[in-house]
């Protein structure tokens, strides 16, 4: 559903990443990993159509795509640390935002959309919190709220930027379940992840960014110690430690 050919990403004409190519199919999870400042979030912004690539081509093959080649609908879940947790809004209002696209100035939310909002609240375990203000949410509940918003968006493509960075293990397990459900429904997912262990269980393919370039392939093929060093994700000392620990564990 998505083919990216040799794109360059960056600001003010200075590329962060060059020659980045990858593909995303329906029902696939692609993990995006890389060190801080390697261009992961810039890539997300580019796929969302907010920031044009410096070079290269992005082809969407969404059957319902708009003439420009942008998919009709992308769900996006940013890093919740960037948001105002004190914003005067109830949990269900934040979830309902997923249904706002395409609404007229005066149109309200119809029954189908209202049902979908209720379903999303129940699915994420927030039904009982629906009327509480956002500031009463813990970090994990806030993240579930954004997952619920993405469920409401009902988009063929879902982009998640570090969805597990602020939450505890049990919430993470519940959210991973939702991600697997999305994959089973045939949606294409790209997930920026910091924690390599999450990648191993979840990702079909992997895009490794760093050192001004990108490697793409099956997750198992891309995530090798040599590759991680080459893309500055690990330093050589860290890698030596890892190898040492692995040998210890094996013996």
């Amino acid at each position, binding site marked *: 559903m998505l083919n990216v050919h040799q794109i360059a990403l960056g600001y003010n004409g200075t590329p962060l990443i060059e020659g980045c190519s990858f593909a995303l199919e329906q029902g696939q999870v692609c993990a995006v990993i890389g060190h801080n400042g390697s261009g992961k979030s810039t890539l997300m912004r580019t796929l969302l159509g907010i920031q044009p690539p410096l070079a290269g081509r992005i082809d969407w093959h969404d059957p319902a795509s708009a003439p420009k080649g942008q998919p009709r609908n992308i769900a996006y879940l940013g890093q919740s640390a960037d948001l105002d947790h004190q*914003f005067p809004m109830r949990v269900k209002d934040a979830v309902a935002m997923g249904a706002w696209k395409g609404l007229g100035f005066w149109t309200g939310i119809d029954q189908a959309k209202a049902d979908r909002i209720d379903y999303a609240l129940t699915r994420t375990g927030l039904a009982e919190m629906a009327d509480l203000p956002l500031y009463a949410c813990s970090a994990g509940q806030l993240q579930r709220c954004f997952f619920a918003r993405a469920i409401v968006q009902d988009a063929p493509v879902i982009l998640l930027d570090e969805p597990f960075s602020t939450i505890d293990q049990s919430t993470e397990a519940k959210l991973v379940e939702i991600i697997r459900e999305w994959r089973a429904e045939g949606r294409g997912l790209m997930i920026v992840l910091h924690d390599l262990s999450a990648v191993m269980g979840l990702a079909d393919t992997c895009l490794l960014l760093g050192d001004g370039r990108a490697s793409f392939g099956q997750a198992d093929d891309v995530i090798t110690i040599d590759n991680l060093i080459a893309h500055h994700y690990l330093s050589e000392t860290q890698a030596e430690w890892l190898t040492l620990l692995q040998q210890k564990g094996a013996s």
Partner: protein
Amino acid sequence: MLEWLEYDFMQRALVATSVLSVSIAPVGAFLVLRRLSLAGEAMAHAIVPGIVIAFVIFGLSAVSMITGGLIAGILVALGTSMLARRTLIREDASLASLYLIALALGIFILSAAGSAIPLKSFLFGSALGIGDDTLVLIGATATITLMTFAVMLRPLIAATFDPIFYESQSHRPGLVQQWFMFLLVLNLLAAFKSLGTLMAVGLMILPATAARYWVSTITSYMILTLIFALLSCWIGLILSFYLSQVPTGPAIVLVAGGFFFFSLLFAPLGMVWGRFVQK
């Protein structure tokens, strides 16, 4: 008790500030949510030279003063972002430098030109001089502002709460922000006559920050902001009527400040009861 209402100029001031409150409150509510309170303050000073130059050349014409104010505001905004990007000083220092120069330039020109408006009422507002053209300006501003909010409320909420999410959903994401900045300048201009250049932002910010301590939905937040703004104007006007040496601007803003401190302490999310709040 109501003798102040018998005066024609007080009736005008009451109408002017009431309509102004209806217009300025929603703008202030979102200015606070968008974390632009200080930028709003800076913008209020940045537009002064534009207004003064327009006033000195064309006299008290609302259209030329708006045009002048908008031009000065845009120049300062562009200058700030250029200085911050191209030179070593950061955005806050660039903005502060430029708006201070702008404010000084405005007052300098106003004084040098020997203006008919006394400096004190220019800086701090006056209930006395509210003429028909000021009433028309305030009415037009309120109309444009309320129509905008009727059409743009959902995009504005989304763009304020989660900008990247909003940008991913919208075809013209910049429009909301640019139009909001236009509303900001327009409302500051409308507030000049009654509140003065130094106090105009006070009626925008303080009712909104006070209301934040009471509510947890956007609708109730905007309504409460409006109520605080209206009460501040009415009580402030009466104060400045009985203490005739006190200009209207500080009187109104001080009342708004009273609401702020009361809310800060005793509102449900204030310091005494606010158990829920975590940063």
